């Protein structure tokens, strides 16, 4: 085939173009073109998801040829009395909220720095993106090496600074396991948060800042009355997404601690995974998934409603 098309000039980010009236002649074509994507999504995503939600109301087991019965709300009643599960939910919430919050604060700080004219900015920008590209399993292995109680550099520095002489078993101690895992979670999630906030910062018109400066507002004042309000939509979007991703995350903590010690880092996803693929309780595990969705939806609903209300005021 010969392509006699002019050289594409679209290497830069796409720019909006003028819109023409869409004609509806292509409606059938549109369906045909979408079909190759639609079928796999339906068969391997929409239908399984509906099934998964439904399994929560059954006693489905892993083995072949075991009859499945609809048990209604029985799974949920059992979950309500399962204190291990409730505990894993509490841990999951602590994990998701702290990681999201710390990510936001650190990400905003870094974005503000990257928005300034500093040397080594390119290096920080590059480093801040790397965790995005790394497989979560590798990140977990890397931090296990760092936090190793005997040969890890973190404990070594503590000894050198005489903060702790014996060393701390970060991932194995009841008190430090969850905070340590949260720190790794923050490290992993820095890229998306920082980049989103940086894009937001760069979108703030400079004259807003100048006008505020002319009115005599100092740096702090400008930050709170110009920067933050302007960033608001992006802040809500990225923290909501971060919360969902964190609450549903699995691989990182699975490799870091596998939920230990003593269930101190047993996130809901780990709990449900064990229930499904270690004990074969497909129905019960699906019920946990149902509860997780419900909780995320309620949480986000409250969060976004609070955001909207404040925006109206």
């Amino acid at each position, binding site marked *: 085939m010969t392509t006699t098309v002019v050289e594409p000039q*679209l290497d830069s980010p796409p720019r909006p173009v003028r819109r023409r009236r869409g004609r509806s002649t292509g409606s059938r074509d549109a369906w045909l073109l979408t079909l190759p994507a639609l079928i796999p999504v339906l068969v*391997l995503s929409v239908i399984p998801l509906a099934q998964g939600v439904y399994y929560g109301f059954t006693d489905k087991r892993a083995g072949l040829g075991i009859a499945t019965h609809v048990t209604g709300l029985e799974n949920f009643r059992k979950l309500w009395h399962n204190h291990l599960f409730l505990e894993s939910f509490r841990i999951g919430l602590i994990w998701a909220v702290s990681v999201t919050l710390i990510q936001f604060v650190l990400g905003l700080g870094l974005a503000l720095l990257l928005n300034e004219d500093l040397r080594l900015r390119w290096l920080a920008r590059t*480093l801040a993106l790397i965790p995005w590209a790394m497989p979560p399993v590798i990140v977990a292995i890397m931090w296990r090496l760092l936090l190793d109680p005997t040969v890890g550099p973190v404990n070594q520095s503590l000894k050198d600074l005489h903060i702790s002489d014996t060393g701390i078993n970060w991932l194995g101690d009841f008190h430090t396991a969850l905070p340590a895992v949260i720190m790794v979670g923050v490290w992993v999630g820095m890229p998306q948060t920082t980049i989103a906030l940086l894009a937001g910062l760069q979108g703030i018109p400079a004259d807003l800042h100048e006008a505020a400066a002319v009115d005599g507002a100092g740096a702090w004042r400008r930050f709170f009355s110009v920067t933050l309000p302007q960033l608001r939509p992006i802040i809500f979007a990225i923290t909501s997404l971060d919360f969902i991703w964190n609450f549903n995350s699995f691989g990182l903590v699975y490799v870091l601690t596998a939920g230990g010690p003593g269930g101190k880092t047993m996130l809901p996803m780990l709990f449900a995974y064990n229930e499904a693929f270690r004990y074969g309780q497909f129905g019960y595990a699906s019920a946990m*998934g149902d509860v997780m969705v419900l909780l995320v939806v309620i949480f986000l609903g409250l969060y976004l409603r609070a955001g909207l209300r404040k925006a109206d005021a």
Partner: protein
Amino acid sequence: MRKPTKAVRTGQYVALALYLIFLGFPLLWLLSISLKTPRELASINPHLIPHHFQWSNYSDAFDAQGLLRSAGNSTIVALGSMVLTIVVAFPAAYALGRFKTRLRPIATGWILVSQLFPVILIVIPLFMILRSIHLLNSLFGLVLVYLVWTLPFALWMLRGYVAALPRDLEEAAAVDGAGRLRTLVSIVLPLLRPGLVATAMFAFISAWNEFFFALVLLKNDNVRTLPLTLAHFVGAEGQVSLGPLAAGSVMATVPSLLVFAVLQRRLTSGLLAGAVKG
């Protein structure tokens, strides 16, 4: 705008230095371990810079059980889902970007909803579907799953690029009597190349890095992907020494890091492009 005072600038550089340490030190440490001798690794007084640089950890990692085969498996899966994603996403993204049909709000809605659900809900039925068609423990089965899993974001990204293309050429082609398919292949495809490259890289990285689906859907040693094998090494059974483990980890990171280096600019702008065009 006024220049910041010297004190403010100093504070900013201190903060930047702290960020650089937090973000960069873990990576340097991993590299450092991968270059150390076993004796130096056992030292309780570790240094960031190895006394003797040695590369044998890397060759040891290649010899470690199954690591090379896992790298092969990961490559097959990542390339497979990359190609399949592009083939499927290109026409669909074009349709979503060009036609105002009911498909568009449905697709956008699905992209958002699919983010919300924990993968445990989808993986159990998937496990049973793949078991019934004998695609458990199969790299092809995993590629299918990755295709579906990557599609929402790939479509979202690519649609932004489509919406930014000028329509004039397509209309000219239609006037000249070219059919829809012809227009798509010889007009749109070349123009959309930057977007397609970005989407392809995104699909590659997603598949290369993925862990959860692989953990559930692959049980045999011979089909394991890299993340599975490396995770196995640090698990209860894994007794691989630190040096080769770190070397293997570095090697598993390099491909997605290289792809990402090319991609990152386009990924961030593609994200934004997808977001602005409602």
